[in-house]
C-alpha cells in the first residue's frame, strides 16, 4: 500500500527481514571482497573501474573506491573507511573487515530474535570498552625519533602492502620523515614527503633524495649548478603588460628600433640584477620569453620552468626561498639556497634534482621509486603513504600496541569477560562484539595458509596465561609479536574501531529504506549495460 504513495520506481523496504538483514548482508559481501587483502600475506585484487582503468592492488581504500559500491548500507561502510583514510591514512581495510564482521555477528543475534536496539546498546558499550582496553595494552611509547625505532614502528604498516621490500622502504620512509622533522614534531606535514615514480630499474634501486625532484628538463643549456642561490618567480618571465590596452606609439622606423632596444635593455637590466645578486638558478611558474632566455644563458643562469603551483611551492620549501610576485630582483630573504641542482637522466626520464647535503636544513624529502611497471609503483606508493601517515600518528601520539592480531585478541578476550558479567539483554551483543574481533587473527592466519581455528584457540590460551603480546606468525603458528618487533599504532587502531562500530551501529539503527529510482548516469568510457556494469554489481551487492 505504501509503495503506491511514492513516485514510480521508488523502492521501499521495511522491517527486520526486509531492510535490516538485507543491509547486513550487503556489508558482509563487501567485507568479503577486501578481507583476503588484509595483512602481509594479503592477496591482490585486479580491479577494472568504470573508466576501464586497471588496478592491481591490495589496498582496501582503492579497491572499494574503484568498484563503485551502490548499495546504500555498503556505501556507509565505504564512507567509514574513507574517513579512516583521511583522518589516519592507514588501516582502511580493518574498518571494512571489522564492520562486516560486527554486522555478521549482529545478524545472528537478530535472527535469534534480539531487538536491534539491544544489539546497538551492547555494541556501543563494547566500543567504549575496546578503546579503554587498547589504552591499557600499550607496550611501547616512542618519544625519540631515530631511524631504527621509527623504521620498526612503521614496518607493519608497510609490510601489509609490500611484504617483500618492507625493510628497504621502512628505512627509506623513516629517513625521509626524520630528515624533515620540524622543531615542533607535531607540525610534521605528510605532504612534505614526496614520491617520484620513475619506470625502469628494480624496486631495490629506489632511493631517497633530500630535497625536491621535478620530472622535467631544465630550459636552457645549463644543466647543473652547485652551491647555488635560487630565485623563485611565481609567474612567467616576460615583458610586463599593462592591464589597460597598451599601444606602442611609433612614428618612424627609427623609433621602432629604439623601442625594441629599450625592451632589450630593460630585460637585460633585470636579469643582470638577478645575476649580480649571485643567483645561479631561476625557477619560474610560467612561460619564459625567448628574450629572457637569451639573457639567462648569457649570464650563466640555470632556468627551471614548472606549471604547477604546488611544485613551485615545494621547490621553495626545498631551497628555503620565497616566491616573488614581481620580476624585480628578489630581496635577500626571498632568495634560497641549494647545495646541488642538476638535471639527471634516470632510465629515459630527465629530471631536475634539487638536493641538499645532510648538514643543510631541508623541509622536503623525496623518495625516488624505481620499478618495472606502474602497478607495482602505485602499490609501493600507497605503502609509503601508509608509512608516512603512521609516522605522523607517531609524532602526535607515540603509543604502540602489539601487532599481528595480538591487540585484537586481547580486546576479544577482555570484552568477552565483560559480557559475561553484564546483566540484561545486551550481554549477548557484547559477547558477539568480542567474537568479531577474532576476525583479524583469523584472516591473518587464513591468508597465511594456516588453520585459523587452531591459531585463534592457541592465541586465546596464550592470552589467558597472561601473554598479551602474542599474535599470529605468518610463517606458521603463533609468536610473541612484541619480541618479533611487530607493532601497531594505538590511535590508528582506536579510530578504526570507533569508525567500524559507528558504521555498524548506524546501519543497525535503520529500519526502513526508501530508495528513489536511480537516475541513469551515462558511464563515460564504457557501456553501462555491458560486462563491466554487471561486474560492478556483483562486487557491490
Amino acid at each position, binding site marked *: 500500500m505504501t509503495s*503506491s*504513495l511514492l513516485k514510480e520506481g521508488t523502492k521501499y523496504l521495511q522491517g527486520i527481514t526486509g531492510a535490516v538483514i538485507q543491509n547486513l548482508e550487503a556489508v558482509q559481501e563487501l567485507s568479503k571482497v577486501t578481507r583476503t587483502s588484509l595483512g602481509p600475506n594479503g592477496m591482490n585484487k585486479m580491479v577494472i573501474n568504470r573508466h576501464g582503468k586497471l588496478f592491481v592492488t591490495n589496498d582496501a581504500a582503492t579497491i572499494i573506491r574503484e568498484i563503485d559500491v551502490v548499495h546504500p548500507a555498503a556505501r556507509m561502510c565505504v564512507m567509514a573507511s574513507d574517513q579512516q583514510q583521511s583522518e589516519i591514512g592507514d588501516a582502511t581495510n580493518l574498518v571494512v573487515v571489522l564492520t562486516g564482521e560486527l554486522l555478521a555477528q549482529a545478524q545472528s543475534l537478530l535472527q535469534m530474535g534480539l*531487538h536491534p536496539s539491544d544489539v546497538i546498546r551492547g555494541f556501543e558499550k563494547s566500543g567504549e570498552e575496546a578503546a579503554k582496553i587498547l589504552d591499557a595494552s600499550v607496550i611501547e611509547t616512542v618519544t625519540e625519533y631515530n631511524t631504527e625505532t621509527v623504521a620498526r614502528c612503521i614496518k607493519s604498516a608497510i609490510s601489509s602492502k609490500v611484504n617483500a621490500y618492507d625493510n628497504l622502504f621502512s628505512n627509506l620512509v623513516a629517513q625521509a620523515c626524520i630528515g624533515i622533522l620540524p622543531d615542533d614534531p607535531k607540525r610534521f606535514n605528510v605532504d612534505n614527503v614526496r614520491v617520484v615514480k620513475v619506470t625502469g630499474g628494480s624496486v631495490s634501486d629506489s632511493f631517497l633524495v633530500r630535497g625536491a625532484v621535478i620530472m622535467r628538463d631544465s630550459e636552457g643549456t645549463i644543466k647543473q649548478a652547485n652551491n647555488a642561490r635560487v630565485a623563485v618567480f611565481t609567474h612567467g618571465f616576460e615583458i610586463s603588460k*599593462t592591464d589597460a590596452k*597598451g599601444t606602442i606609439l611609433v612614428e618612424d622606423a627609427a623609433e621602432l628600433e629604439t623601442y625594441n632596444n629599450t625592451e632589450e635593455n630593460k630585460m637585460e637590466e633585470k636579469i643582470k640584477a638577478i645575476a649580480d645578486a649571485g643567483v645561479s638558478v631561476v625557477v619560474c611558474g610560467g612561460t619564459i620569453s625567448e628574450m629572457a632566455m637569451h639573457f639567462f644563458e648569457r649570464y650563466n643562469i640555470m632556468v627551471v620552468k614548472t606549471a604547477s603551483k604546488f611544485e613551485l611551492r615545494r621547490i621553495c620549501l626545498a631551497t628555503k626561498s620565497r616566491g616573488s*610576485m614581481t620580476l624585480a630582483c628578489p630581496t635577500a630573504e626571498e632568495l634560497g639556497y641549494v647545495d646541488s641542482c642538476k638535471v639527471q637522466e634516470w632510465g629515459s626520464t630527465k629530471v631536475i634534482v634539487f638536493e641538499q647535503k645532510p648538514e643543510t636544513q631541508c623541509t622536503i624529502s623525496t623518495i625516488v621509486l624505481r620499478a618495472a611497471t606502474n602497478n607495482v609503483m602505485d602499490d609501493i606508493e600507497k605503502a609509503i603513504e601508509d608509512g608516512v601517515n603512521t609516522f605522523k600518528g607517531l609524532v602526535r601520539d607515540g603509543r604502540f600496541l602489539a601487532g599481528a592480531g595480538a591487540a585484537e585478541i586481547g580486546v576479544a578476550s577482555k570484552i568477552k569477560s565483560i559480557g559475561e558479567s553484564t546483566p540484561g539483554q545486551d550481554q549477548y551483543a557484547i559477547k558477539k562484539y568480542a567474537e568479531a574481533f577474532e576476525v583479524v587473527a583469523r584472516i591473518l592466519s587464513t591468508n597465511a595458509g594456516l588453520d585459523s581455528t587452531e591459531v585463534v584457540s592457541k592465541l586465546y590460551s596464550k592470552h589467558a596465561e597472561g601473554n598479551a603480546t602474542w599474535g599470529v606468525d605468518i610463517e606458521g603458528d603463533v609468536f610473541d609479536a612484541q619480541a618479533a618487533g611487530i607493532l601497531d599504532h594505538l590511535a590508528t587502531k582506536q579510530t578504526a574501531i570507533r569508525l567500524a562500530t559507528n558504521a555498524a551501529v548506524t546501519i543497525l539503527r535503520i529500519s526502513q529504506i526508501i530508495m*528513489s529510482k536511480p537516475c541513469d548516469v551515462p558511464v563515460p568510457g564504457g557501456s553501462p549495460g555491458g560486462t563491466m556494469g554487471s561486474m560492478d554489481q556483483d562486487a557491490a551487492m
Partner: protein
Amino acid sequence: MSAISMLTRGQSDIISALQALTYNINAAKGLQGVLETNLGPRGTMKMLVSAGGDIKITKDGNVLLKEMQIQHPSASLIARASTAQDQITGDGTTSVVLLIGELLRQAERYLADGFHPRVLTDGFLLAKEHCIKLLEQFKVTKTLDHELLCSVARTSLRTKVHAALADKLTGIVVEAVQTIRKEGEVLDLFMIEIMAIQQHSDVNSRLVKGIVLDHGARHPEMPKSLKNAFILTCNVSLEAEKPVGDVVEQYKTAAEREEFVNQERKFVDDRVAKIIDLKRLVCGGDPDKSFVIVNQKGIDPASLDMLAAEGILGLRRAKRRNMERITLACGGTAVNSVEDLSADVLGFAKSVFEQSVGEEKYTFIEGVDNPFSVTILLKAPNKYTILQMKDAIRDGVRAVKNAIDDGCLIPGAGAFEVAAALELKKLQETIQGRAKYGVQAFAEALLVIPKTLATNSGFDTIDTIIKLEEGARQHVVGLDIQTGEVCDPVTEGIYDNYIVKKHFLEATTLIASQLLQVDEVLKASSDKQQA
C-alpha cells in the same frame, strides 16, 4: 464513467463518492504507516537514497516527507500540511501525519455505518475547540531558566538523533540561543551559524562563541594563529582591476610602459598601504597584538604578499552573510571604502586561528567579548551524520526559541493527548446531537500518540493506554519510554512547545476535515499520456 469524461480532453481519472473517501483514507493511513516508527526517542531511523545515490539517515518526519517523493495526491496534501507545521513551529511533523491518519481511520468506521462525513467533521471541529481551551489550562508557566530550556531542547532533539548525541547538542543549542538573545528583541535564529567539519565523531561538536569561516588565508606566509586580533571587516576590492571604459595607454619606450604598469599597480597598493597603516596604528610595535582583515571582495596575490609581509592575516571572498555576523560577533563595522578606515571600525577577538582538515581550511575567530552571533561547529565522521545533525540543530534551536516566545510549556511524553482524550470523552456525554460521534472519534484518535510511543518502545499498547488513562484521572502523566510505566513529565523534564501543540491541533483537524469532505477526485490526463 460519468458525463464529466466528455468535458475533458483525453482519458481523465474520476473517482467518486465512497471510493474517493477510501482513496483519501488509504493515503493517510499509508503515510501514517511510513512515519509511525519515527515517533519518539526510541523511534527507528529511515534511510533515504536519492536518485543520485546520496544517503540520508533520519527519523525527522519533516525531512522524511520532503525527501521521499510522494506521488499520491492526497498523501502529498498531508505531507505539505505537515511540512507547513515544521516551517511554522519547527517540530511536530510526525505527530501531524499520525493524527491525520488516525482521524481518518476512526472516521472510516463511522462512515461504514452510514454516517455523513459532514457530521463527523462538525464533531472534529467541536473537539478541537475544546482541546485548545484545555491546552490553555494545561500549559505550565514557569521562569524559563537554563535548565528548563535544556529540557525543551532535549525533548525535541531526542526524537531526532540518538540519546548521547542529543544530550550533547542540547547544551550547545541552549547556550547558542541564550548567547544571541538580546533582551526585548525578537530572536534572530540566523545569527546562529552552523558549520560542519567532516572529522572525528559526532560528540566532538561544540559551540564557538564567534565565527568559523570555511576558508583560510591564501598565502603560505600568513600567520596561522593569532592572539588579540583586531578585525577589519570590509568590502573593498584589493585586486588589480581593468579600468572602466576604453582606455588606451600609449608609450614609446619600455621604461614608459613600465611606468604605466607601476601606476596601475599603485592604485591597489595604496589601498593596501592604508590598511597596513591602520594596523601599525592600532598594534604599534606590540608583538602580542595582531591584525586580521576579512574582505568580501578579492585580494590579489600581490596584495596578499604585502599583507603577509606585515604579519596580517587576510581572508578574501568572505560570504555576504558572514560579514554581518562577524561584526555582530566581534564588534566593529563593515567598511566599504578605505577612506572610512579608523580604529573605531575594528572588531576584536582574543584568538584567531586556522585549522586544516584534509583539503579544507577553516578559520576560527574566537574569544570575543559580547557575541551576538555564534557558530555551532558540528563534527561528524560522514556526510549523513552531518546532515542529520544539521536538521536536528535546526529543530532544537526552534524549540528553544518557541519556548522563549511562548513563555510557557506543555508537559510532554503524551501527557496532553491522554488528558485531552479523557476530557473529550467527558464532553461527549454532554453533547446533544450527532456531533458527539465526531468528538468521540477525535478522542480515540488523539490516543494514537501515546499508543505509537508505546509500540516504538516495545511495550504493549493496550496495557500502556489503560495505565495512562487511569493515571491521568488523578494528575498529569506521560509515558516513561524506558520502563513502560507512567511518569510525571514535569519532574522528568519532558516538555513540548505550546505553539507546536496548538498548531498540531489546528492543522490536523483542518486537513482531516477537508479530506473527509472530498466526494470526487478528478485527475486530468497528463500531457505525457496524450503525447
